[in-house]
């Protein structure tokens, strides 16, 4: 195993809000609060920050430097990629630390949906370009129907059942019941799942993640310095962001190669992150799987090697993602039940699991996997260790 060069030493968040309820706070205000909280958690000062990394989501390092009076940045970078890049912030941060370009990097993620701006219609609100018109003419109005095309194909090819998608949602709901800030806390039965309105077959309303507002920030520094700071260090054992031409723009393209179409497109980045961390799926104690749509959790479990291709449905239905199962998944309730901030709450949960202070603590958790969303390249992932 390679020696980790960087560690997460601070974690901060605003409260979690249902979509729109963070108003009248502005997006930068939310980001500023998260950064100040993360820096305080680390026992550092805002003046110490010399690197800012983010997943591309409509905010700029320049505004943050000016707003918080950060004296001097020596590193600023953004991962692209429609949610796929979210865990990639940890790759950028550790790159900055390893290369010596920065000593104290904050990773930022923020989601705020005010007024008519909603992710659920994000395909329809895309600029009508010469290539985007084909999707618009077909009636694909949001990411959900596009994911449905993939889920439908997985069911056709492997016999995956809606019961598997239901189990992903029910497990997330059971975990969320212990989470103080979870948006959806009511337990969910299989009958209730099947009674929910269908939005885009085979997806019902409950297969879609929440739409929520919050900002989160994480402080990354060198592993050596981390040992002298106030929090138990959470080492970035490996992080990666990448992908190939067989996946490309994913659901904006829909011409992914046939053998990867009914997948989460994460096999390449999974191989990269396991190689960098020097571990295998058997070593992972808790998995924070990007859950924008429940079927894609099933497919990521395949891509990340927790079960074989095509067996994700049966694997999930066996109880594997529950407490004490083969691989507990999203003990914070994830995007489906707790809060959706484009993957950032998954990083927070991984940190809390490895500090040993999580609300649904996985006993003796040592390695946590975090995945970015199945989405256009680059997709991303990180493996953390305590």
């Amino acid at each position: 195993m390679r020696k980790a060069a960087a560690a997460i030493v601070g974690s901060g968040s605003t409260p979690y809000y249902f979509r729109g309820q963070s108003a009248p706070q502005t997006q930068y205000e939310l980001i500023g609060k998260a950064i100040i909280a993360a820096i305080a958690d680390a026992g550092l000062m805002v003046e110490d920050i010399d690197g800012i990394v983010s997943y591309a989501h409509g905010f700029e390092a320049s505004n943050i430097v000016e707003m918080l009076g950060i004296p001097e940045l020596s590193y600023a970078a953004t991962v692209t990629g429609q949610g796929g890049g979210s865990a990639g912030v940890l790759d950028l941060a550790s790159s900055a630390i390893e290369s010596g370009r920065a000593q104290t990097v904050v990773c930022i993620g923020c989601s705020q949906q005010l007024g008519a701006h909603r992710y659920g219609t994000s395909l329809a609100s895309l600029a009508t370009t010469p290539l985007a018109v084909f999707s618009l003419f077909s009636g694909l109005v949001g990411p959900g129907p596009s994911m449905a095309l993939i889920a439908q194909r997985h069911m056709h090819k492997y016999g995956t059942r809606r019961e598997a998608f239901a189990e992903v949602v029910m497990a997330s709901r059971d975990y969320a019941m212990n989470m103080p800030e979870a948006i959806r806390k009511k337990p969910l039965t299989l009958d209730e799942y099947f009674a929910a309105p269908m939005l885009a077959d085979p997806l019902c309303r409950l297969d879609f993640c929440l739409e929520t507002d919050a900002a989160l920030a994480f402080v990354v520094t060198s592993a050596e310095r981390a040992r002298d700071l106030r929090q138990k260090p959470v080492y970035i054992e490996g992080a990666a962001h990448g992908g190939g031409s067989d996946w490309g723009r994913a659901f904006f393209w829909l011409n992914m190669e046939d053998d990867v179409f009914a997948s989460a497109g994460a096999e390449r980045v999974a191989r990269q992150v396991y190689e960098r961390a020097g571990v295998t799926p058997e070593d992972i104690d808790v998995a924070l799987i990007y859950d924008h749509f429940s079927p894609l959790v099933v497919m990521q479990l395949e891509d990340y090697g927790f079960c074989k291709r095509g067996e994700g449905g049966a694997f999930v239905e066996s109880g594997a993602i529950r407490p004490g199962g083969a691989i507990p998944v999203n003990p914070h309730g994830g995007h489906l039940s707790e809060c959706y901030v484009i993957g950032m709450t998954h990083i927070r949960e991984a940190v809390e699991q490895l500090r040993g202070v999580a609300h649904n603590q996985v006993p003796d958790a040592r390695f946590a996997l975090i995945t970015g969303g199945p989405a256009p390249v680059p997709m991303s992932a990180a493996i953390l260790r305590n």
Partner: protein
Amino acid sequence: MKSTAPDITQIPLPIDQWTQPFWDAAARHELVMPRCAACQTWRWPPTPFCPKCRSQELEWMPAGRPRLYSYTIVRRPGPNPDDPAQIVVPGLVEFPEAGGMRFVAAIVESEVEAIRIGAPLTVGWTPKDGTNVPVFSLG
């Protein structure tokens, strides 16, 4: 219940030099797919380079017989509160004779219960801005 066509009247139709040949053919009710003129690799959409050999030369070929690769069923409220929900079926249409390229389009006027992956399809055309938008139905 039968699937209906999505309302596309409010969606503009921007065209660039790479998609122009597709819409020129569609105006003649011809469904065509691009293929690299240098190495015969099919691609969709018509991006500016062949991803295999980087040539920019394209030849537009008949797409051949379509079949359904995947689909979803989207229910939308009707135009008036008491109207029944409209069913729109975005489909992923595969062209086995054009390298298996897939084209996303509405599956219209088809019995929703009969829609299946692998089903053969027939192309139809919806007039739009001097050309036609392809739609597909079962059969």
